[in-house]
């Protein structure tokens, strides 16, 4: 049986199931100290003084650093540059490791206390007195653009990081909107959400004087990039003397892609004090400092002709970047958002304009989907709203505007109006399957007949996303300051066992299983003979980490490339051993066979020969160990159709998600069980944004719901069992034909749920309810208070 396409149980499970997983906070190093931070209780305030004198003499305190101590050090950098429309470089204010003069968001770090124990460090934090002079704050990106708004950075009078546009000529789009038979317009906030990986961020810095080596253990999705940024941009320490280890990482969802100040501080201070330092975020620190997601204030308009064909799309967004630029922040509202506005549709004219604004809030960056959920939300909400307004069926309206099927091989890729070329797609197919599963006609009958004090509604979302990020030259031209390739080393050991060193990083995705399936399948060896190593910069040559649903499409392809090299060399060795021409050999079931004969030699024998090269091809190097770097030819474009059915209790306004149907096309599938799990998790986060989650910042910049007592995390009883299925349209440009599954659920689901709520409420004459769609908001609509 082939391993590809098989739901092999995960090889990594055992350590997690027995409590033997090793997350950063589980690591103890002899002599270790503990760091805690003094964080600003104000969103915006001048620091008139920091008094550490009492804290310094407290038990166990080793050292206290303030902003003045690190003023000479660089801040943490940004990995993506977006220019203003007029060509000027974006504004890039310093993000200092500790703030000396003016705090710019709630939780901004003012001092770091290092003590012998965690409790002593916490005690000392409470004894530090900071003299703050509170200043007015601005939290909404549109407000930040207004005349006279409080300034986040003194040298930026308009709070703007950059403005940006993409698509067709603005005048043509304006004209088409003006001439449209019908225009659907929505103005809404795609609210800020908190990623909430269950493992809080944690970092251990360990400098060893005897060999001048630094080791950073950190809960990151991206160990090599953290090392690069730390060495080249923040501390200027030698990269070959720095080892970054991302051990078991308890979820990331984007928030652990980035290089954070705490990582740089524990490494820097470890050398200063000569002892290892551990910092682990408390959950309230996670709420205040893990990069948040979304936060767009958007006006979107869709023009339609009399037959319902989309004629133009115009989008204006104020994107909130927070007070400082996180690692990939500039890319999210631009190249990961504007480029997705074609959706699955043939809309001939599209224009998007983004004002990227600084506010007195925590940084916003990639969160599961990163820009693509924002694009999908506005498109899919526009379409269901347009259907409601014109009396058309939302399914038919989509079908009328769908791009025809294309495989990217015999038919070319689809060139969008917003810079991308889709690789392959069959959009009717996912929608057909979803409708079949939901029983659409029966639902409409049931809905019309309902008479029990409840309302029911159905909502659709047919989405596309861009994954497998990304061709380095393309993203380089768009402002990325890094390449987005991936590396993999396949080391065949002398006994035929295989060690694979991957630059992708698994923090729940199951790489240790999926990657092993690919390798075992190719070499015809048992999965137990394959070990996947990741997350250690000393073991793995280089890596660009895991995000943007890129691990299999890019990281997996790098493994394939190295396996190709192993097979090529192995074939030469086998041919020598079999005294045959390499062209006359075929490989299968773990051995090379001379075609048409029973003469064969096994993978293990060839491996051993490579390392004991006595009887060996002349001129061939010993060993069977290859590294590769894979730079993708294009993004991959998964797509799907999501359908939500909700029930609303008219008495309470409570929205209950009754069913959720998701049909996703993520290209070829290696492990269906793992892909299903990725979809489930994405759905829960997307549905969470629709119905439950969202930060509440007060006008003065306080995060009102910055704990689990206040922020509504989706719980087990918020969901039905998900109903999911797949179609398979292979990616034509990577060797595995895979597209990526990590973000699909989170991108498609949010608008489907809100559309379902709006469908249920269609008798009430409203066109939108702001997310999260709480009972209170719905009750107000039903009772005419909106």
């Amino acid at each position, binding site marked *: 049986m082939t391993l590809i396409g098989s739901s092999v*149980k*995960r090889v*990594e*499970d*055992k*350590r*997690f*199931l*027995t*409590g*033997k*997983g*090793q*997350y950063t*906070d*589980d690591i*103890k190093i002899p002599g270790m100290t503990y760091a805690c931070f003094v964080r600003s209780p104000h969103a915006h305030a001048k620091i008139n003084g920091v008094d550490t004198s009492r804290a310094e003499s407290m038990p166990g305190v080793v050292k206290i650093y303030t902003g003045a101590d690190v003023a000479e050090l660089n801040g943490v950098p940004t990995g993506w540059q977006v220019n203003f429309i007029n060509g000027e470089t974006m504004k890039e204010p310093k993000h200092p490791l500790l703030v000396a003069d003016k705090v710019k968001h709630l939780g901004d770090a003012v001092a770091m206390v290092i003590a012998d124990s*965690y*409790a002593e460090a916490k005690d000392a934090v409470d004894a530090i007195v900071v003299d703050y002079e509170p200043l007015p704050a601005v939290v909404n990106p549109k407000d930040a653009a207004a005349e006279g708004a409080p300034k986040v950075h003194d040298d930026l009078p308009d709070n703007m990081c950059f403005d940006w546009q993409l698509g067709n000529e603005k005048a043509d789009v304006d004209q088409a909107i003006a001439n449209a038979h019908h225009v659907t317009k929505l103005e809404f906030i795609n609210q800020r959400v908190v990623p*909430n*990986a*269950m*493992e*809080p961020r944690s970092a251990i810095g360990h400098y060893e004087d005897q060999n001048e080596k630094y080791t950073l253990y950190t809960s990151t999705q991206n160990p090599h990039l953290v090392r690069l940024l730390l060495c080249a941009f923040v501390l200027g320490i030698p990269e070959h003397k720095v080892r970054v280890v991302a051990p*078991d*990482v*308890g*979820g990331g*969802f984007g928030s652990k892609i980035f290089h954070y100040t705490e990582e740089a501080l524990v490494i820097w201070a470890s050398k200063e004090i000569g002892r290892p330092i551990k910092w*682990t975020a*408390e*959950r*309230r620190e996670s709420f205040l400092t893990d990069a948040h997601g979304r936060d767009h204030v958007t006006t979107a308009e869709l023009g339609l002709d009399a037959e319902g064909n989309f004629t133009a799309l115009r989008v204006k967004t104020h994107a909130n970047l927070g007070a400082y630029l996180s690692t990939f922040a500039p890319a999210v509202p631009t190249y990961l958002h504007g480029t997705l506005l074609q959706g699955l549709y043939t809309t001939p004219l599209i224009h998007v304009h983004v004002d990227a604004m600084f506010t007195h809030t925590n940084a916003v960056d990639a969160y599961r989907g990163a820009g693509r959920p924002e694009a999908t939300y506005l498109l899919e909400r526009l379409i269901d709203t347009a259907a409601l307004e014109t009396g058309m069926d939302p399914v038919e309206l989509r079908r009328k505007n769908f791009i025809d099927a294309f495989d990217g091989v015999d038919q070319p890729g689809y060139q969008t109006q917003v810079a991308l070329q889709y690789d392959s797609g069959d959009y009717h197919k996912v929608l057909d399957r979803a409708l079949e599963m939901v029983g659409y006609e029966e639902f409409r009958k049931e809905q019309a007949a309902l008479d029990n004090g409840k309302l029911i509604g159905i909502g659709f979302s047919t989405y596309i996303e861009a994954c497998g990020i990304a061709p380095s030259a393309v993203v380089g031209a768009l402002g990325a300051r890094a390449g987005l390739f991936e590396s993999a080393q396949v080391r065949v050991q002398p006994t035929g066992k295989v060690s694979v060193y991957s630059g992708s990083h698994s*923090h*729940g*995705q*199951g790489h240790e299983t999926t990657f092993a399936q690919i390798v075992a399948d190719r070499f015809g060896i048992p999965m137990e003979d394959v070990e996947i190593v990741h997350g250690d910069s000393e073991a793995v040559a280089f890596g660009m980490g895991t995000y943007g649903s890129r691990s299999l499409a890019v990281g997996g392809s790098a493994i394939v490339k190295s396996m190709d090299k192993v097979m090529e060399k192995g074939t030469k060795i086998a041919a020598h051993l079999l005294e045959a021409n390499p062209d006359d050999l075929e490989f299968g079931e773990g051995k090379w066979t001379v075609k048409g004969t029973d003469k064969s030699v096994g993978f293990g024998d060839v491996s051993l020969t490579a390392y004991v090269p006595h009887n060996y091809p002349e001129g061939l190097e010993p060993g069977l160990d290859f590294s590769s770097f894979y730079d993708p030819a294009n993004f991959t474009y998964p797509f799907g159709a999501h359908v939500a059915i909700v029930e609303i209790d008219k008495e309470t306004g409570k929205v209950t998600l009754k069913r959720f149907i998701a049909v996703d096309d993520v290209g070829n599938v290696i492990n269906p*069980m*793992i892909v*299903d*799990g990725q979809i*489930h*998790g*994405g*759905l*829960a*986060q997307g549905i969470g944004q629709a119905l439950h989650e969202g930060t509440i910042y007060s006008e003065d910049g306080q995060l009102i719901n910055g*704990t*689990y*007592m206040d922020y509504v*995390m989706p*719980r*087990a*009883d918020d*969901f039905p*069992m*998900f109903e999911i299925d797949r179609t398979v349209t292979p990616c034509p440009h990577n060797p595995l034909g895979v597209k990526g599954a990590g973000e699909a*659920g989170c991108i498609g689901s949010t608008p489907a749920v809100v559309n379902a709520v709006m469908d249920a409420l269609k008798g009430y004459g409203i066109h939108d309810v702001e997310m999260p769609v709480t009972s209170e908001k719905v009750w107000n609509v039903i009772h005419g208070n909106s």
Partner: protein
Amino acid sequence: MHAKISVTVNGKVYERTVEPRTLLVYFLREELSLTGTHIGCDTSSCGACTVHLDGKALKSCTMLAVQADGCQVTTIEGMAQNGEMHPLQTGFHEEHGLQCGFCTPGMIMVAADLLENNPDPSEHEIREALEGNFCRCTGYHNIVRSIQHAAKRMQTATA
């Protein structure tokens, strides 16, 4: 300022001197190096730190170590017996009930308590029992199935 306590954890008696303010979860993790019990929040909301105290599921961040003096504690490390996984551990493996693994120990401990008191729970009862435990990876779908898997197996075993 320190208190002497004796706690039986996973069948082994530990006598230690602790600061009275030490939470049970820190005692387990720092003092006994049983790091399978995780800390996911500071408000007793997430359930990652769930252990059994005298046979009942409890959030070990919500209790002081001194309060556990004389008690029996079971952590995730004590769930497998004689090298054999607990049916819940097997269930989570078979049904892909875990991804990053961080919430998993707490999920298993709370599910073990549920099945002890209700060996054949409905899907709704399982979801209600998990209300105090957050998972951000699985959408709870396969966690529910894992617990159903274990319930079935445990019933077969006792039948």
